């Protein structure tokens, strides 16, 4: 018994410091951003998160929807991970491709497709923030707001031309 005790004391804690316990999944992080988009644009644009799964992979897509602009849908950010283990996750967005250069996490590993792989929710938040604040995303959001405004004003003044469905 005493040998065991002294043996335990001799072995240091090998774990990496303390684990945070309020970890969020990629889905949760994208879902929160999707909800925020509607609030930030007075619901001119809304965000949605779509999920697809196969045997070894799950993907979550943050989709920007412009209801007034023919219900237009645009894939913005995609996170791909093992169905049982949300990290590591590959995060895809236009501004995150390796050819774009800077990725805001200290050690970056890229997938074969050239997108960063994140190992924690902190890293996930960092790269998603980078994608959402990128020039490409800003241009997209402004474009869709402008087109939505245009569609709303024209529908208020004239019957809609063009494709004849109800969307």
């Amino acid at each position: 018994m005493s040998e065991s005790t002294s043996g335990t004391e001799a072995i240091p804690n090998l774990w990496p410091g303390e684990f945070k316990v309020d970890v969020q999944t990629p889905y949760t992080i994208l879902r929160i951003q999707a909800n925020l988009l509607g609030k930030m644009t007075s619901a001119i644009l809304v965000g949605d998160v779509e999920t697809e799964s196969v045997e070894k992979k799950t993907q979550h897509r943050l989709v920007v929807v412009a209801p007034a602009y023919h219900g237009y849908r645009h894939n913005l950010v995609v996170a791909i991970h093992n169905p049982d283990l949300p990290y590591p996750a590959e995060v895809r967005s236009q501004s995150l491709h390796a050819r774009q250069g800077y990725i805001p996490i200290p050690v970056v590993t890229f997938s074969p497709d050239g997108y960063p792989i994140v190992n924690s929710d902190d890293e996930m938040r960092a790269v998603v923030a980078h994608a959402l604040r990128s020039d490409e995303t800003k241009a997209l959001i402004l474009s869709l707001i402008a087109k939505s405004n245009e569609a709303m004003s024209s529908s208020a003044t004239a019957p809609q031309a063009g494709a004849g469905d109800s969307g």
Partner: protein
Amino acid sequence: MTSFLFWNVMNRDLRGLIARAVVERDVDIVLVAESGVPDPDMIGALFTATGDDYAALSDDADKVRVFTRLPVDRWIRRQRDSLSDRMAIWSVAVGRPPGILLVATHFVSKNHSSSSEQAMRAQEVAKEINRVEEGVGHERTIVVGDLNMNPFEDGVTGGLALHAVMTKALAGRVERIVGGIPRRFFYNPMWGHFGDRTAGPPGTYYHRSPADAELFWHMFDQVLLRPSVMGLLHGLSIIDSIDGESLLTKPAGLPRESAYSDHLPLTFNLTLD
């Protein structure tokens, strides 16, 4: 009658041959995957051959280039994927209201993705189609493109994926419950074009590998139709010659990849009026 032509031209400049096919078949909507020429050059070739003004509708990065002589204001883009640019969904006000939804797609090749990745991508495409159908309020949807999967693969047949079946009778059931959720069918007429007991080539793409199991002929290029429009399909064929020029080698009857493309074109008509 609205006529369509789809061809994966393997990054070749086949504008002249495409234009001749358009004249020969009086094509209204031309879809080209792996186009080898800038859109303005394609439009020029179409105008020279037909005398008609064709418009290019695609974004810079779109993998499938779309050209049409239908008025541009009849087209509304419904969906865009800036990450892969492999899918585009349009509302097209053609024929009686509410027109159709046209999905142009070029799935990632088997050289760059596993079957499960292709299946996941197919789920994504199917879900985007469903969302757009819900948004526009109808299901008059046609999918055209190079799926890089055969009609019997999971990504095409799966209930969570494209859910495309081989007969009108099956598709006519409209939907079935998968995982507790109703999933709508597509009709996949390409099943009827496999092998050498039907008119036309045995498939749309030929590939020979040293693998133990090799189909040789594949049906990667497909048209899928929702039940509400499947009865409007006429004249679906895999093209093996254009204006008297054979797209097949002699005597083997394989795609003349060295001159044209490793894929053969598809053409079909929809009675939308």
